[in-house]
């Protein structure tokens, strides 16, 4: 089987989410990549260096700079004449584009796969991860999104893919990019961090969220996350949200501070290797999944912990 993997990038650098999708694709067959964007020579070079990669299709066009689904989907559809499967990392970019490709190909997409059981059979989470379904497709072509935490990352070096320029229909004239507010942070990215410190509603305010969580995260070299309740209350921005509808994470260590542990939150972090919970309510559901728990007032515990580390 020939597979095509959507390369996640920001026109400057290739994102790690790509590497997990490559691992999933390699279980199906030959791995080709697609780099669509503007001024993406560097990304294409990085893509070609991923271990086990064959062809790297590069579509360099202003119409693809912001990955608008209206422009990118027809490009991918045009490459599906020569590929049997297309896989996207289950990022907001992948989730936006993949179904548009699937419908154009008259294929029922398989979302957020956790494993490859065979050439047409996959597992995927349903009901916020409260159940795992094994599904088999009868479609001739496959359109798949891949949960990053479920597959190891392919090696970023050691490959010798061949770069080949492709072009599509360019701008379809349906949509334009108007701007973005992308958070700049010195901290590791949430979905690839080894350690995450997450805050919940118990922080009480945006000021306290940053005053308590940020110094501890800095001490641990951690990324900062938040529960949906904290994001809804405005204590933390939306891109911090860990959970069913936010980011799915699986770090080595996840520190949950003032997070009660709603199902929606657990769905996003319960595959973390070690979970540490700090909460004043000893009956909070978070303690049912935590490896190490400390019951008490976070406003006393967190400063003391930060100090002692």
């Amino acid at each position, binding site marked *: 089987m020939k597979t095509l993997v959507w390369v996640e990038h920001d026109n400057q650098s290739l994102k790690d989410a790509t590497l997990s999708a490559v691992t999933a694709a390699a279980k199906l067959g030959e791995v080709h990549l697609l780099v669509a964007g503007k001024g993406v020579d560097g990304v294409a070079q990085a893509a070609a260096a991923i271990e086990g990669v064959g062809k790297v299709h590069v579509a360099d066009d202003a119409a693809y700079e912001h990955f608008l689904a209206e422009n990118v989907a027809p490009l991918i559809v045009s490459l599906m004449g020569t590929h049997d499967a297309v896989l996207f990392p289950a990022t907001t970019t992948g989730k936006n584009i993949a179904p548009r*490709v699937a419908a154009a190909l008259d294929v029922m997409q398989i979302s957020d796969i956790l494993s490859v059981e065979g050439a047409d059979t996959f597992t995927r989470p349903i009901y916020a991860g*409260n*159940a795992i379904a094994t599904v088999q497709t*009868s*479609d001739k072509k496959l359109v798949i999104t891949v949960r990053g935490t479920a597959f190891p990352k392919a090696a970023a070096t050691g490959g010798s893919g061949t770069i080949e320029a492709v072009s599509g229909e360019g701008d379809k004239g349906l949509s334009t*990019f108007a701007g973005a507010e992308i958070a700049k942070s010195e901290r590791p990215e949430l979905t690839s961090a080894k350690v995450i410190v997450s805050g919940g509603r118990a922080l009480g305010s945006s000021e306290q969220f940053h005053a308590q969580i940020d110094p501890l995260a800095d001490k641990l070299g951690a990324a900062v996350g938040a529960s949906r309740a904290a994001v809804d209350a405005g204590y933390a921005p*939306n891109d911090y949200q860990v959970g069913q509808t936010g980011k799915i994470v699986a770090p080595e260590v996840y520190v949950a501070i003032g997070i009660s542990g709603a199902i929606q939150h657990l769905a996003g972090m319960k595959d973390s290797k070690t*979970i540490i919970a700090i909460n004043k309510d000893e009956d909070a559901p978070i303690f049912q999944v935590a490896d190490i*728990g400390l019951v008490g007032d976070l406003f006393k515990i967190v400063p003391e912990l930060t100090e002692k580390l």
Partner: protein
Amino acid sequence: MKVLVPVKRVLDYNVKPRVKADGTGVDLANVKMSMNPFDEIAIEEAVRLKEKGAATEVVVVTIGVAKAETDVLLTARAMGADRGILIQTDDEIEPLAVAKLLAKVAEEEQPGLIILGKQAIDDDSNQTGQMLAALLGWPQGTFASKVELGGQGVQVTREVDGGLETVDLKLPAIVTTDLRLNEPRYATLPNIMKAKSKPVAKKTVADYGVDVKPRLTTLKVVEPAKRSAGIKVGSVDELVEKLKGLGVAK
């Protein structure tokens, strides 16, 4: 401008899903079913557009069992939708087939905007809006946290992995809702009573001449591996020791 809002009847948000012992799926017998929470946000947004004078009519459509009429179409009308369409079926309809049916409804209704929830909390597919956009050849503003209608188009602020992104879309367009677009109003009892007089057109899947045969077969459904509770430590010092043991603190 008319706004079309497709909604889905799902296991209520507050009910813990139970996997059936025979591994065929999640038990939906005798449990509370409600409107998918993201779809409530979609209805709310459409009703607000009407209240602002930007939309003239809000039409809600659902595909599902007969009970969907009372479980979700009534709620949607009580929230402010003007009329409903029930496309009745007892079969499970996959997102691709749902999108095909909705494309037919869109051809009939000619809405200027279709607002959908970004995903349903049962199958968590996150596909239908994007698929519908593809079938209609319309632009899509997915995972919206802000929707502003202009003369010729709609500006949608999207929640993306890195933060927020804003796109300008030509009309007609598809919008899918994220959590923070709005806080849906409650369907109050008086409004539920009043909503009963708002019309519902009853259709069947066969009326639309669309192939809805499933492409995916669910071989089995199991519970995920359980995590067991660990230990509790009694002091910050003990926690520091544990963190050192894990190699994340010096």
